[in-house]
């Protein structure tokens, strides 16, 4: 691991601990889970506040409806399960029961993306950011590390309305100081030749590649776009103006994810070359999560190659 990265920590533990703190502050807070409370870490809340914890079993769609019914009575509700169930299995329940009703439900989905690993392609949802971002009124957060997860768990509580927070199964190196704010991108590294915009697990890889590029004299800005919706359009357009090229990294389908968002935003406002590193239009498979990232086009080498392509287009390298 490069010197730019901090210790690897569990995002899920950070979430579970933050929930307990929230539960202490807000006696009305209710937490729900669908038989995965050990994995999502909502069990920490459940052990502390059993009366306000509802493990409904394997009924993710209805968990969303029950959560909405509770929230419409003025409660703040957190509902957790794996991302494939929260965004996939329960999609129309998130859409109608929660978003259409403007119910104050915070969905914190763990196990997003390929880093689910050995469970395989059935459980590796790489479409969830696109699905959730398309819902009117939905806030979408993709934390890159444990401190951001903690901050995001609190931040969505303060913001009225539905939210989707996507967490990763694997521990991730700490890359931020935890000063996350909804609607703000975090500039983790300044630079003038190229900007890397990344979310989730790939923020660390982006920082590593930026460090490698620095060795050959390339100055790379790195933005953590954890707040996907609302997103920091000014920071993105500043990066387009200042550096003239943007490389987007996401552990998500390139068809509907953050790359699509960045490309649309820049082309409408300040067109610059944009390249997308992410999951192509395929399902994943069983295997070690980090090896899957390499296999499916998100290796450090691939990121470096794509960066190099952009630098060539801009005439900054031969």
């Amino acid at each position: 691991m490069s010197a730019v990265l901090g210790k690897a920590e569990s995002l899920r533990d950070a979430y579970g601990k933050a929930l307990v703190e929230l539960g202490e502050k807000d006696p009305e807070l209710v937490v729900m889970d669908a038989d995965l409370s050990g994995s999502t870490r909502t069990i920490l809340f459940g052990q502390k506040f059993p009366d306000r914890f509802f493990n409904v079993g394997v009924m993710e769609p209805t968990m969303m409806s029950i959560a909405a019914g509770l929230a419409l009575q003025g409660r703040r509700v957190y509902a957790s399960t794996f991302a494939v169930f929260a965004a996939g299995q329960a999609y129309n329940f998130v859409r109608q029961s929660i978003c259409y009703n403007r119910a104050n439900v915070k969905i914190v989905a763990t196990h997003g993306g390929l880093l689910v690993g050995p469970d395989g392609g059935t459980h590796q949802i790489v479409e969830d950011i696109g699905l959730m971002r398309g819902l009117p009124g939905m806030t979408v957060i993709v934390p890159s590390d444990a401190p951001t997860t903690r901050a995001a768990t609190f931040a969505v509580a303060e913001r009225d309305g539905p939210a989707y927070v996507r967490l990763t199964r694997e521990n991730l190196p700490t890359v931020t100081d935890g000063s996350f704010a909804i609607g703000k991108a975090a500039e983790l590294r300044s630079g003038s030749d190229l900007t890397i915009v990344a979310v989730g697990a790939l923020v660390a890889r982006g920082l590593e590649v930026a460090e490698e590029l620095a060795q050959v004299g390339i100055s790379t800005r790195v933005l953590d776009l954890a707040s996907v919706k609302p997103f920091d359009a000014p920071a993105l357009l500043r990066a387009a103006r200042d550096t003239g090229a943007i490389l987007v990294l996401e552990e998500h389908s390139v068809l509907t994810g953050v790359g699509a968002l960045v490309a649309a935003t820049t082309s409408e406002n300040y067109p610059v070359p944009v390249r997308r590193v992410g999951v192509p239009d395929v399902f994943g498979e069983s295997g070690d999560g980090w090896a899957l990232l390499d296999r499916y086009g998100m290796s450090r080498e691939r990121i470096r190659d794509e960066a190099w392509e952009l630098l060539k287009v801009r005439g900054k390298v031969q």
Partner: protein
Amino acid sequence: MTYAAQSGHPGGSLSVTDLLTALVFHELKIDPTRVDWPERDRLVLSKGHASPALYAALSLRGFLPREELASFRKLGSRLQGHVDRTKLPCIEASTGCLGQGIGMAVGMALNARLRRADYRTYAILGDGECQAGPTWEALMAGGHYRLSNLVAILDRNGLETDGTTESIMGIEPIADKFRAFRYHTIEIDGHDFPQILSALDEARRTTDGPTAIVAKTVKGKGVSFMEGKHQFHGKAPNKAEAEQALAELARVPEARA
């Protein structure tokens, strides 16, 4: 309303009208001058397509002006095709896509228990909706948590969009299913007011778990050419049909009001 809009669901609205009348004018603790009264009873129309019947009942009960009914399904109206709480505050939950209202009702009933509030929650289900898996997820949760403040009322008119429920995907024996899901289950004629009111009373006296009322109804009730016709599930009447329907409904026999 459906004639004016030239769209909507007359059949399933007429089948549930007597049930809604009993709820809105007798059973529910509600107050048109205090729409957000915390102690009000909650009514969730899980079969949100029966919106015309609910709008009409709420209008007569003083929750919205009668003239507004003409705006049903029109651009800018608060009276959406399927009930919408964000536009019309006296609606407890926006529904439409089926299998979700009952889950929201379970959440509302759970909230009452957590808060030790006295309000009761009523959900009206369609029978086609009982083919949807999530309906049973939600009913299972209501039974598991023994929500004695929850009443699930099934508008058992026997018909869905394409035909009879039993020819498409049979839901019988439906009362047994509710019982198996731990509901105190009462079977009634959903157009007989004494039976409806007595079932609602019995539900209030049931303290060890939720109640299900299986109300046998007639789709298109009160309109001769709509009764028992699935063709009027999601189709509005034309002008002549609408005039005939209103005339027939106006001379409804017996002292039902």
